[in-house]
């Protein structure tokens, strides 16, 4: 019977411990950052055109949006809070995985998915109550507004897919305190999603 002091079973250990394998390059984090930059540039383009077109229409003395259109602030503000909350929850997920607490990580990622879904539901509801016709014969282009809002909704769907992928990889044991890169990348991407929403929120919902 092997006792606690019996180390004969470890005779095959090398005398010199080999050097640890080199740190894994942060490819996922780098690619996420570059992808985020590309997405941000696309949004910057859309926002630039939106702001410029809006200014030109207002200069002619016309209203930017048709008279019947109402843009309430309750939903956009709640959407901002929802996304910010999701950002905080992702920080919780990162903190949990750094402590090898997979249970809390899973709960946090699940909660993020739920908050993402809540954002999408609020966006869809807001679209229905705005009563902004997509087609029209005014100088204003509601398509600009819809392009920005829809593009951000697509971005949130992509971020949720990222969360789902990270969730499954965490459950599969890919991430732990030794490898947190995937969750850092996710947190970064979600942060970009929040920043872009705040830009859309100000340009569309606040300035109207």
């Amino acid at each position, binding site marked *: 019977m092997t006792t606690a002091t019996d180390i004969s079973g470890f005779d095959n250990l090398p005398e010199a411990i080999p050097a640890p394998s080199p740190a894994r390059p942060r490819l996922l984090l780098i690619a996420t950052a570059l992808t985020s930059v590309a997405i941000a540039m696309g949004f910057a*383009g859309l926002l630039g055109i939106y702001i410029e077109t809006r200014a030109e229409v207002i200069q002619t003395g016309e209203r930017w949006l048709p008279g019947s259109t109402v843009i309430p602030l309750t939903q956009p503000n709640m959407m901002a809070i929802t996304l910010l909350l999701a950002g905080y929850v992702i920080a919780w997920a990162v903190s949990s995985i750094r402590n090898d607490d997979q249970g809390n990580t899973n709960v946090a990622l699940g909660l993020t998915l739920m908050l993402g879904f809540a954002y999408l539901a609020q966006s869809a509801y807001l679209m229905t109550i705005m009563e902004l016709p997509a087609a029209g014969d005014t100088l204003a282009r509601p398509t600009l507004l819809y392009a920005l809002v829809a593009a951000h909704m697509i971005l949130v769907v992509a971020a949720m897919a990222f969360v789902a992928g990270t969730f499954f990889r965490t459950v599969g044991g890919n991430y732990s305190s030794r490898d947190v890169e995937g969750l850092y990348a996710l947190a970064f991407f979600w942060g970009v999603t929040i920043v872009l929403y705040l830009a859309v929120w100000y340009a569309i919902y606040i300035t109207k």
Partner: protein
Amino acid sequence: MALTETRPETDAPEAAVAEATPAPVLERLLSTGDHKVIGRLWIGFGALFLLAGLVVGAVGAFEQADLGSFDIVDDGIEFVQAQSAVRDLIVLGGLIPLAIGVATMIVPLQVGASSIAFARGAAGAFWTWLFCTGVMAASYLMNGGPGGGVGDAVQLWTLTQIAVIAALVWGLICVATTVMGARATGMRFEWIPASSWGFFVYAIGGILMLPLVAAQLMLGYLDVRFGYLPTQESRLTLLGALDTLTHAPVVYWLALPVLGVAVDAIVTHTGVTLRFPKVVLGAIGVFGVLSMAAEVLVWNGRGRPIAFDNGLLVVATLAAVLPILATLALAGEALKRGKPAMRTPLVAGLLSGLLLLAAAAVALLGLVHPIVSFIETAGDTSIDLPDGFALAGTTFASGILGLVVAASVCGAVAAVNQWGHKIWGRQVDGRLGILAALVAALGGVVWAASMVASGFAGQGRDLSALSEAVDGAEAYNAAAGAGMALLAVSGVLLLVSVLLPSIGLGSQAEPFRGLTLEWLAPSPAPLSNFDAAPVVTSPYPALDATDDGGAQ
């Protein structure tokens, strides 16, 4: 019912045979994660689309050689659609994919990576691009594209262009990520070989600029979808989305990697190291920054004309010449010190650099009018400037594009001949490459000279209204058509250069060796590129590995 978990013995030999039989070629291509195969696919199909664009362009130019009527197309709008297709095929179908292809093939080898970052993703980017470029071309045949008469086809064109751009951006992200995160142990950022550095700067430029084009296209799609662009004439505004990418100095970005390829070719074939490698990398970086900054400066949103009198744009165009000059001068100094063997990569690389320099130098002519206007405004004086210098909106820009296309083709020829043996294990006859580069250079110069002269004559870019043609326009157009035809011939030669070693033709002996890391890999490089993970201690690892330890 009884079930057995072991296969009947009779199946075993068949399974063994199945394992031994290689998968069909198509299956292997579709499932490959080998960056060398993916790069070859980008290059092959990129050259094919470039060829298609040049052929259609040449046909269109010959159509304009007789301005009495439209013979091949029905009317002016159809002619503009054809011109738009040419631009899409050359830029999105040819030049950018060619650069991504060479980068995908070479960058991992140069930086000591076992593969390109996200190899499956890189393959996905290629297949997405291929499919969507095909559909985009088909949408033109369905009367889509800018000025298209069928709304659904126009929408299809905008959507596929967005998808093409997304695929290109993802391909560039894979390249940039490889340079940033997958370098060999010890390889500092400033030790990155010039080609890989050029591709990195190029990738960052694409990541920053192409989404702006996609944003315009997205709005164009919605405008057509919801009836804001109901007529063919109104849909011509969609042409503006790609405008900025084909004007100086942004257009230089399309050929930016040729500077790195030229530098590496010089170092390889002279066998001497650069005296100021960091300055060379810095110059390439500055060149990229000027192109990107210019894109932001001239980017005006939906289809509005570019403001050529923008002071910052003038400065960017003026300054863009300097980094090209600096790069070529510093690399040329190595050329002077060494005893260069005038092999194909060196000749083609030098030609590509000189053509890019020529493009930047010729573009300076376009600055005369804005600068004189500025002086007149500031000094309240009148300067007698010939009308011909008002080049904005003329065919002048097309001439610059011709030189950039020729520079890119020469750069691709240089790259295929420089690293071909590492990829295929075979080297095609160098004379084929030299011929391709010379024909491309000649074609580019003829195209550029005719369109620049036409621009000075005051010929507008849009010749759909034949009544607006200037005197001599027919001759200029015929000459431009001949230039494009020559470039198309060089495209065929480039394709042959890629196809010959792919089918096992060419010399098996490695013709030369360079000083950077990729030359330490076996030739042809195996799936993981290197026999063992390389460790780098200098910018020229292959030189360190020689007997004299880098005494040069």
